[in-house]
């Protein structure tokens, strides 16, 4: 049996190599921006627009100017999607109805009847008509024209139009009138595809409440998990030691997630939102659960193998549970990798950071919590259980 615990120094060094730079990045971020991460509008208040302009000639500067004219000092603008994206636009379709919902239904029916791959989403925009959003790239001009032949008679036009999509973070507007004025000015740049429009706006008051609730959730989480560990190990000798090691592993995971999030905030502009906190707490739950499974096994093995050195028992327990840990984590990872590769965009950041957290959680249960237990027993940690090493040697002799 390969001795996993023996190499414990290396594990601690590896963890430190990730955590310490992470702390440095958070410190740097704190010094430059006033917060260890980029905080989302969930906490600070503000507005996030996602706008798809249908037509040419919209530039980042143009969008910025509109926001500045409407009183937003420093909007953060990001272009989404690729350079040459297009949408098909159907104007004045030949239909008996003028009701946009009815016509949308007809368009979807025709698309279904044509039997083309993928799916179609239709958004109606005043002034330009129906913006068609095909989910498959394999659809050609010929396909489109034949599918909607019945709707494209006299006077109707079906044109492939370039689009540009921006995500804009701006301030919170007090009134609906101000929001409307801003959107009207944006419409001047080019028509907006209302089907792909999204707006999330949060007042600073609500943001402050979320911040307080988040602090409360963290506090409550810490209390409850500590309580849970105390109960789970109440009958074990040295329960305190087990608890501290499980909590250390948990803090390890949180620090890794925070460090990576801080780094991604600086590089990619990722923001910490309510879902980030959700990821942290979920990882805490899973991490503690992993540590408990290994500790359970150690607890079970100690009376069974009285003659063996502590380190050997721990190593044996680790090996006995490693299959379970890997198999379980792998299954969760399968799902998360699929979601990361193919899932909906809005939760990608959440899933990524959850993935990092669970990865760290698997690692820390096996390579932080357990080796730490051995170090503690052998008196390797400065100031703690210093006579442990002597006792250990005596026991060995």
């Amino acid at each position, binding site marked *: 049996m390969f001795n996993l615990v023996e190499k414990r120094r290396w594990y601690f060094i590896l963890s430190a190599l990730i955590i310490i730079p992470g702390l440095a990045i958070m410190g740097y971020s704190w010094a430059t921006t006033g917060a260890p991460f980029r905080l989302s509008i*969930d906490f600070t208040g503000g507005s996030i627009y*996602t706008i798809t302009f249908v037509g040419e000639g919209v530039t980042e500067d143009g969008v910025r100017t509109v926001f500045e004219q409407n009183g937003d000092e420093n909007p953060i603008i990001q272009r989404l999607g690729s350079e040459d994206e297009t949408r098909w636009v159907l104007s004045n379709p030949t239909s008996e109805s003028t009701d946009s919902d009815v016509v949308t239904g007809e368009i979807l029916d025709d698309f279904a009847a044509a039997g083309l791959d993928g*799916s179609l*989403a239709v*958004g109606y925009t005043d002034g330009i008509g129906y913006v068609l959003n095909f*989910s498959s790239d394999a659809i050609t001009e010929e396909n489109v024209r034949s599918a909607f032949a019945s709707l494209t008679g006299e006077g109707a036009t079906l044109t492939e139009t370039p689009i540009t999509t921006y995500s804009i973070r701006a301030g919170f507007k*007090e009134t609906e009138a101000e*929001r409307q004025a801003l959107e009207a000015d944006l419409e001047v740049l080019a028509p907006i595809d*209302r*089907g*792909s*429009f*999204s*707006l*999330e*706006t*949060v*007042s600073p*008051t*609500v943001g402050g*409440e*979320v911040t307080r*609730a*988040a602090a409360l*959730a963290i506090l409550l989480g810490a209390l*409850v*998990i500590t309580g*849970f560990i105390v109960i789970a190990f109440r009958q074990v000798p040295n329960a305190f030691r087990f608890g501290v090691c499980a909590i250390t592993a948990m803090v390890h995971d949180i620090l890794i997630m925070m460090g990576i999030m801080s780094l991604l905030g600086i590089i990619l502009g990722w923001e910490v939102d*309510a879902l980030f*906190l*959700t990821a942290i*707490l*979920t990882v*805490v*739950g*899973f991490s503690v*659960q*992993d540590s*408990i*499974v290994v500790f*359970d096994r150690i607890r079970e093995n100690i009376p069974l193998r009285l003659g063996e050195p502590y380190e050997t028992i721990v190593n044996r327990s680790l090996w006995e549970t490693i*299959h*379970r840990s890997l*198999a*379980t984590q*792998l*299954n969760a*990872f*399968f*799902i*998360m*990798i*699929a*979601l990361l590769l193919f*899932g*909906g*965009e809005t*939760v990608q950041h*959440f899933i990524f950071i*959850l993935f990092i957290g669970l990865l760290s959680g698997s690692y820390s249960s096996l390579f932080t919590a357990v080796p730490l237990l051995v170090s503690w027993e052998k008196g390797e940690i400065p100031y703690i259980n210093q006579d442990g090493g002597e006792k250990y040697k005596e026991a060995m002799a």
Partner: protein
Amino acid sequence: MTTHIRWLIVIILLSVFSAWMIIPKEENIVLDFNNDDEPEFTFLGEQPLGLDLVGGLRVLLQTTVDPSTYSSEDLQETANNVSRRVNALGLAEATIQTQGIQRILVELPGETDRQRAIDTIQQTALLEFVDFTGMTLTDIQRLEGQRIITTAQIELGLTDPANSTAQRNPLTGQPFGTGLTGECLGAASAQYGQTSQIGGNEWFISFEVASECVSQFADFTGSMVGQPMALVLDGVVLSAPTVQSQLSTGGIITGQFTEDEIQQLALQLRSGALRIPLQVESAVEVGATLGQQFLEDTIRAGVLGAIVVFLFMLIYYRVPGISADIALFVFILLNLALFKLLPVTLTLPAITGFLISIGTAVDGNVLIFERIKEEIRAGKDLNSALNDGFDRAWQSIRDSNISTIIICGILFLFGQTPGASIVSGFAVTLAIGLILNLFTAVTVTRTFLYLIAAISRKQLTENQWLLGV
């Protein structure tokens, strides 16, 4: 063995019921045991989806006046007014609820015209005293609760007489005449006492008219003594009491009212007079096509991930893997059925929570199967290995699920903050998954594993490879 057969029947029945629940149905299933038209249970035909998936609008409104100047009932009545106006827009699936003492949350799935919606929501209620001269009791009963068109609505530009489908005066074919609007109402309260020399005590409404409207009100009531006068809120007829005599500074409204009815009417009158202005605290608008794409992407990703999990369990654990896959399948059926039964509104985070619970649902199986393998390697026979595997793994499964369920509870509480509501969906689906998992990972897996073991004991004993060893 009979226990396992019994469980098998239970599991099959549960699965069939769940599968039937999951199939989308045109109409809701309504159970009304005592036939009072107030159903005890309503099961939704379609799985409700969140705004982020179907597109639409969510607006959190806050009152701009000091909360001590109105009661929580007044806020509720303001919310009812919002609800009434929103329904008039034809948005059937709208939900409107008060939050705390200062806030109203409005959700309008499918609504994409934010301007129209917010304008409608922010309007203050229009209360009218409307001339119902000549109406018979039957007419009034027919009109109560109906939407009518009035002269004040047309003047204020709230309705377009050419296109309105609201009821007109059946006697003249014209819009009803408004005598007085809510701005003139000073106060209104429900009271209990004697209202006439001869009658006993009864519930009635006492109201006052603002001083600048006194002469207008006197003229109006003076012309209609003995005739019904309708109280109309946002175009809907609330009640039409008869004017007993000319009124000026105020009056009372009596009738065969119960206490609840009179309290309700007083609140409605007050909401037409007392204005609680609302401002938008936070808003989410999602375009309809955006959500549809996210939903399709996420479902495809989820199916793909689940298939990999199914294959992994089968390849890694072989025969026990078959029972784990069956358990996982039952787990997915039960989850989807519960989402509809409870119901849980599925948002993207909620679906993510469910998918992650699929990934971790096999954790219990893994713990059990690893135990079984160990016991077999230690030389135990098949039956005692199975028994020990399930017995010993149970405690770990229970403890590990409980810690995450507790975390879900905390997340759910966090999600109760209006700004973080997105979190509750994740917490709810993950928690449901973990709880159902305690059943499927243990009971369902055990049932099928024992049944398979009973059928193919010989092969399994001779060839331990089949057990994943």
